[in-house]
């Protein structure tokens, strides 16, 4: 920025890039557009997870045996074709990989964006289209990740499950663990808040996927935003119903 006019690069005669080629996927991931593909694909994987996670949890409305039985079923996915828990671990590792990819791409794109405007506007911006959801993606994403850490410590590892309650954490007694956790109102409130932010994240993210992957067609463009909002609404309503149900006593031991 020290000189007003940068020295002109020679104009190439043909539209040929000069960048050295790396292996295909790394090459794609090396660019901002490629990172958006990574964001979108990892986003789809995690959307699949949150949807099935929510659907599985609705078993708590059918009673302790159903929910605990569902947890047991997950361990035996594809059993006896595959060893017990093997499919579950493949899913876990893949999802963690997808989360890591999503976070790395988000981090490096944020750094890129900050570099792209080192001197910010000195007066207030008047945004026309940018929504609360689109502008709070980083914040909502960070809160959701922090929530996931708590969620795992609470209901998977049981470390924080018994704080402030009577009783003992037993891994296989999913139903009892959930009820015990949500009977603490601050925990229930945190679950509700985190899931509302997850919904906000999904409402923008699930629409962005279509743009990032280049899925644009006049035949379904009108449905892209509706799909994103509908998907977010279903996940959020399902998820926040669980702590509320425990708090008001619909689901109890």
């Amino acid at each position, binding site marked *: 920025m020290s000189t007003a006019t940068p020295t002109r690069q020679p104009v190439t005669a043909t539209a040929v890039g000069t960048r050295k080629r790396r292996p295909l996927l790394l090459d*794609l991931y090396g660019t901002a557009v490629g990172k958006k593909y990574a964001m979108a694909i990892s986003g789809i994987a995690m959307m699949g997870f949150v949807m099935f996670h929510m659907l599985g949890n609705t078993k708590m409305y059918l009673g302790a045996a159903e929910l605990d039985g569902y947890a047991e079923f997950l361990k035996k996915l594809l059993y006896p074709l595959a060893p017990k828990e093997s499919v579950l671990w493949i899913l876990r590792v893949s999802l963690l990989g997808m989360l890591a990819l999503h976070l790395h791409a988000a981090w490096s794109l944020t750094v890129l*964006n900050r570099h792209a405007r080192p001197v910010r506007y000195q007066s207030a911006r*008047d945004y026309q289209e940018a929504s609360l959801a689109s502008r709070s993606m980083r914040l909502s994403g960070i809160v959701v990740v922090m929530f996931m850490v708590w969620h795992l410590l609470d209901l998977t590892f049981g470390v924080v499950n018994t704080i402030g309650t009577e009783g003992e954490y037993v891994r296989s007694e999913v139903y009892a663990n959930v009820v015990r956790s949500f009977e603490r109102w601050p925990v229930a409130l945190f679950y509700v808040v985190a899931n509302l932010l997850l919904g906000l994240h999904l409402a923008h993210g699930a629409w962005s996927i279509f743009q990032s992957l280049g899925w644009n067609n006049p035949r379904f463009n009108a449905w892209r935003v509706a799909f994103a909002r509908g998907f977010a609404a279903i996940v959020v309503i399902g998820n926040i119903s669980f702590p509320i149900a425990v708090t008001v006593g619909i689901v109890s031991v």
Partner: protein
Amino acid sequence: MTHSVSNLTLKVWRQNGPADKGQFETHVIESITDEASFLEMLDVLNERLIGENKEAIVFDHDCREGICGTCSLMINGQAHGPQRGSTTCQLHMRSFKDDDTIVIEPWRANAFPIIKDLMVDRAAFDRIVESGGFITSPTGGAPDANLIPVPKPVADAAMDAAACIGCGACVAACPNSAANLFVGAKITHLNLLPQGQAERYKRAEAMVDKMDEHFGSCTNHGECSAACPKEISLDVIALMNKDYRSAKFKNRKQLSRK
């Protein structure tokens, strides 16, 4: 019968060269006809400043009929001001009310260094176009009509993209300083038409890679399209993303790459 707008407070960004820190400078416009364009209002102010032996405010302008893409200006936090689908030169003072405060800033992006006051260097756009925004083969004179058939919807979409005047409002409006709407428009313009097919994927790859050297990334806010004086749709970004992916995955022999 003409009306006038009175008592406008202008807060104009003054910056004496790229390295200067810069600050807002306040001027009061007592009265100006509402038929004046925004740039004419600045002309009037500059005449006054020159008369007072002060330095005139530097800003970009050329055709003043909304087609050259030279004028810029961030007006009250919006690129090209509050009027949708128009450039700053097509914004008139009737868009403002008496006693309004109008804050004027230059485009701000790392790729658009400030030359002076409100004028920025948009050569980064030229670098992108040089990397692939053209058709290499000599095309000769104008061909006979319908020599190369183009379906009507395709011609329309390509023309909508070709309406881009390269003003940089998309970059200025984008919270991330991304140039995806500009590059998407240039790629869509050529990649939809038959003449652009031979270099379609080379073009997408080269232009996107060049864009990466200067600009931020798209987070689908939609601010670019809202600020665009030619109201170019976000669809061009989706096509760019699609063609860029195709460029990476297509058989490289077909792309005649080394």
